[in-house]
């Protein structure tokens, strides 16, 4: 079955968000990377850009498909995973680890509460 870590929040569009001190790390779920297949390209915002919860922040492309990426939370981008530009396959290999995409300075704590819990997300993809 697909990996759905308990310490992580989810969007129904398959992005995840994980609190890490003052920032939130963002990526796509194991289910999403499996659905996409081989990831070959990731387009992400720059450090200092703002993202808004529910709005697109980038694109992930597999060999067969293009998918928009939606921000789970709002805030300023404080870090971008540059490794993905040369190794987009990290999204497939380690979606919750080395395949992370952004770190966002959380603007509104309550936005995390609006996301799906691991349990609710598991129910959605089963």
């Amino acid at each position: 079955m697909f990996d759905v870590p308990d310490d992580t929040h989810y969007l129904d569009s398959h992005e995840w968000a994980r609190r890490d001190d003052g920032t939130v790390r963002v990526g796509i779920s194991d289910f999403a990377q499996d659905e996409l297949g081989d990831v070959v390209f990731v387009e992400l915002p720059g450090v200092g850009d703002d993202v808004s919860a529910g709005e697109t922040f980038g694109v992930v492309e597999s060999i067969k498909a293009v998918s928009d990426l939606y921000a789970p939370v709002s805030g300023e981008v404080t870090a971008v995973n540059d490794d993905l530009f040369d190794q987009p396959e990290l999204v497939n290999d380690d979606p919750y680890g080395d395949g992370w995409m952004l770190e966002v300075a959380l603007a509104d704590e309550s936005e995390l509460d609006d996301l799906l819990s691991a349990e609710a997300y598991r129910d959605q993809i089963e």
Partner: protein
Amino acid sequence: MALRKPPLRERHAERGAKFTEFGGWDMPVEFDSIREEHTAVREAAGIFDVSHMGEIEVAGPDATALMQRLTTNDVTALSPGDSQYAAITDAEGAIIDDTVVYRLPTDDASYLFVPNAGHDEEIHDWWIDHRDEWDLDATVRNATDEYAMFAVQGPDAPDLVAEQTDAPIRNLSKFEAQYADVAGVDCWTARTGYTGEDGYELLVPTSEAETVWDAVDCQPCGLGARDTLRIEMGYLLSGQDFDHESNPRTPYEAGIGFTVKLDTEFLGRDALEAAHAEGVAEKFVGLTLLDRGVPRTGYDVTDEDGHVVGTVTSGTMSPTLNEPIALGYLPADHADPGTRVRVVVRGQQKRAKVVTPPFLEDY
């Protein structure tokens, strides 16, 4: 309308394949990973279920005449067991479909040809209607449901298939075919394929499909890898790189002018003779992107000043080269290799240059 299913649909599902609709068929698009499957075919071997391809049989005293008049190539050049790539054109010379025509090893000249997925009924009717109009004596049979079709492709493919038969199939040259007992099943065994690699296409009686599929021990591959492999070679995909309704193209525009034998009589010949004399306004070309991004079907191609001059008809990140590559049509004055153009990827103009397929060296 219900999707048509290849005979091994459930077998593939049990194996964990993902499926896609293609030409009205429910086909495996990916078994493990497109990249993995693609690499297996380039470096070792892979087997594709391409049972969605059609099979039409043509026999009788006028079979040769009928085939000659409905395909652009010269079927009289075929000896029994030979095959040729050909276009099927309308009276205006626009491609209706592309196909491989096999001459069967029967006493009387008879043929089997393979239209693309979802075209078998239309092409069958096209043959029947013209046979009747021209009053030719030939039987035309749509045998699509009687055959499974597998393509075994890659440098190891000849060994893998040869292991399963005592027939001298290694002696077949490219585009030659024979009936051979493969894994105990009488198969039409053809040294043809659509990946750029050596290998065979096997036409297998539907009831024996599983026996043959199981006997050939290599990476199962889906239509996803088939697409990336054929794009790397610059091969056309019916319905995408040409489409009789939405994107009608002559064989000259589509880069398959070599299939047109103007010294034969066929439907569309006069139009194509004129097109040949005039030269084409647009050409089918390869593009490599110099910037990051993935070109996709329908993306605009512009000149360096940003004026739209063409369209991508097929594109992908090449698994072999790890570079973004595309196929599409450009005006003849933008089609020379090395010409700089742009591909518009989600509103951004990405630098690209025109190349002559195949994208891979040594093919």
